[in-house]
């Protein structure tokens, strides 16, 4: 760890490191700008530089690192899972079902993706793996009607949590976003306070389009929590930094694999460390 003067060349290298972690050019410039302001021309080791950046990023992320807390007064606490196609909604539900059941909760699942081929079977397999009852209809059925029925059944059975799967949809498809709003409206007929949590799954491989995803899903269905999936890959998910800054939505958990146990709490410090290439704890 030889110290050297913090110069323009080093700053450019750092900025590029952050860009390659998907922070986006503006956020990468801002974070390195902060470093330049406080340390330019001073002797500093490469490790100290990365520490500084990681700490700055962790400061932005710390307020959003909040686990999903169920409100015991709702029976059931309704969690609606939404997001773009293939981002990991169904798998995340399977992982959550496992975690919640391990915590002693009675968990029910609703197969609200009535569109995609075999989406119902996929969730049913997760139901078998976790021992959670699955309310399902045939493919092509009305998703809002299914959600309504699932909530009534889960409530009658005294469930603590109902996790509702939905079909993947791109945020710029108005018709599909309207259908999602309809699901929310219909759920409210059973319980006006539901859904209590609306989770958006974001794929860590996604670049700057994540901004548009969060913005539109939040506007349309009041998303109030995020899950970042596929962090076991080479993608670092740095877009989360500017998302945290802009929207302040809690990041409840991260997905680190396809298995049932591959859901982890979101830790601001270790996520930030991994973004700048300081690999600790992950």
């Amino acid at each position, binding site marked *: 760890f030889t110290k050297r003067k913090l110069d323009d060349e080093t700053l450019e290298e750092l900025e*590029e490191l952050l*860009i*390659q*972690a*998907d922070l*986006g*050019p*503006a956020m990468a410039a801002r974070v390195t700008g902060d470093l330049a302001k406080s340390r330019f021309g001073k002797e500093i080791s490469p490790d100290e530089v990365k520490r500084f950046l990681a700490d700055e990023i962790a400061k932005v992320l710390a307020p959003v690192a909040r686990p999903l807390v169920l409100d015991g007064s709702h029976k059931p606490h309704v969690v609606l899972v939404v997001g*773009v*196609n*293939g*981002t*990991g909604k169904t798998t995340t539900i399977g992982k959550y079902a496992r975690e919640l059941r391990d915590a002693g909760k009675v968990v029910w699942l609703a197969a609200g993706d009535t*569109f*995609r*081929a*075999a*989406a119902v*079977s*996929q969730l*049913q*397999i*997760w139901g078998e793996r976790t021992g959670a009852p699955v309310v399902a209809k045939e*493919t092509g059925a009305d998703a809002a009607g299914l959600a309504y029925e699932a909530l009534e059944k889960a409530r009658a059975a005294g469930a603590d949590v109902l996790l509702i799967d939905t079909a*993947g949809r*791109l*945020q*710029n*498809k108005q018709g599909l976003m309207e259908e999602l709003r309809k699901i929310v409206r219909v759920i409210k007929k059973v319980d006006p306070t539901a859904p209590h949590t609306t989770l958006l799954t974001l*794929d*860590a*491989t*996604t*670049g*700057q*389009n*994540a901004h*548009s995803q969060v913005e539109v899903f939040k506007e349309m269905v009041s998303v109030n929590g995020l899950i970042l999936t*596929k962090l*076991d*890959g*080479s*993608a*670092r998910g740095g*877009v989360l930094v500017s998302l945290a800054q802009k929207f302040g939505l809690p990041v409840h958990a991260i997905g680190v694999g*396809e298995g049932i146990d591959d859901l982890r709490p979101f830790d601001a410090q270790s996520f930030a460390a991994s973004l700048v290439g300081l690999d600790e704890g992950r």
Partner: protein
Amino acid sequence: MFDGLTGRLGDIFDRLRRRGALSEEDVGAALREVRVALLEADVALPVVKSFINGVKEKAVGQEVLRSITPGQMVIKIVHDHLVEMLGAESEGINLNAEAPVPVLMLGLQGSGKTTSTAKIARLLKTREKKKVLMASLDTRRPAAQEQLRILGEQVDVATLPIVAGEDPVTIAQRAMRVGRLEGYDVVLLDTAGRLAIDEELMDEVVRIRDVTHPVESLLVVDAMTGQDAVTVATNFNDKVGVTGIVMTRIDGDARGGAALSMRQITGRPIKLLGTGEKIDALEAFHPDRIAGRILGM
């Protein structure tokens, strides 16, 4: 037409307005804005760098045409260079081999492989009048094989009967055997999603390749992909060998910079675009359209 980048270059245009030829300094200032625009469109950083160098070489010293401003001149050079880098118009699926022609579908989890497999099967069946067999080698994702079977029914294309407990390499061999015995023209092999850094699963797909000798190995990538495009393109191409790119979810509002990254890093053509969830939502690739999209025009 050039709105997005034009806006970004507004001030620089004004400064450039009265010059005869583009100086290195003028071009440099404009290209800093182009760099940001490309990064915001998710073009991978190393690709942005080589792109910028290419444009610089072409732009410095160019006489500005009388009919346009220097700024427009720079944008035209950027746009044309981008179209060139994106490669030629669609080349179809290569079926120039002895039947049954194996086609291998590759990519990360959830990128759209299974859906694209069915879309391509439908295309080959209806447009090229081919007898197509699809086989799912995905023994990992719950209900993945069933998903392909149902899609096969929807497009009226045969799928390899599912044998519980069979491993992916064995399924691939069986698919080729059935393909030969039953006179299929094409066998589409849909694989499980895998991370580009997952050595075990990358080795598995290499074994699948080695027992089937695919004529096409299509890397299926999401149009929303960010900087990870570098690792995905590099690893799949180096380890398995990619012959073409299928880019999905082009119906979204992502700028789609990954198209340029994928093309540049693999050197392989973008063959088809997925334009929706429905089974007929597959289109040919047009470089000028994607260029306009990347530049926000």
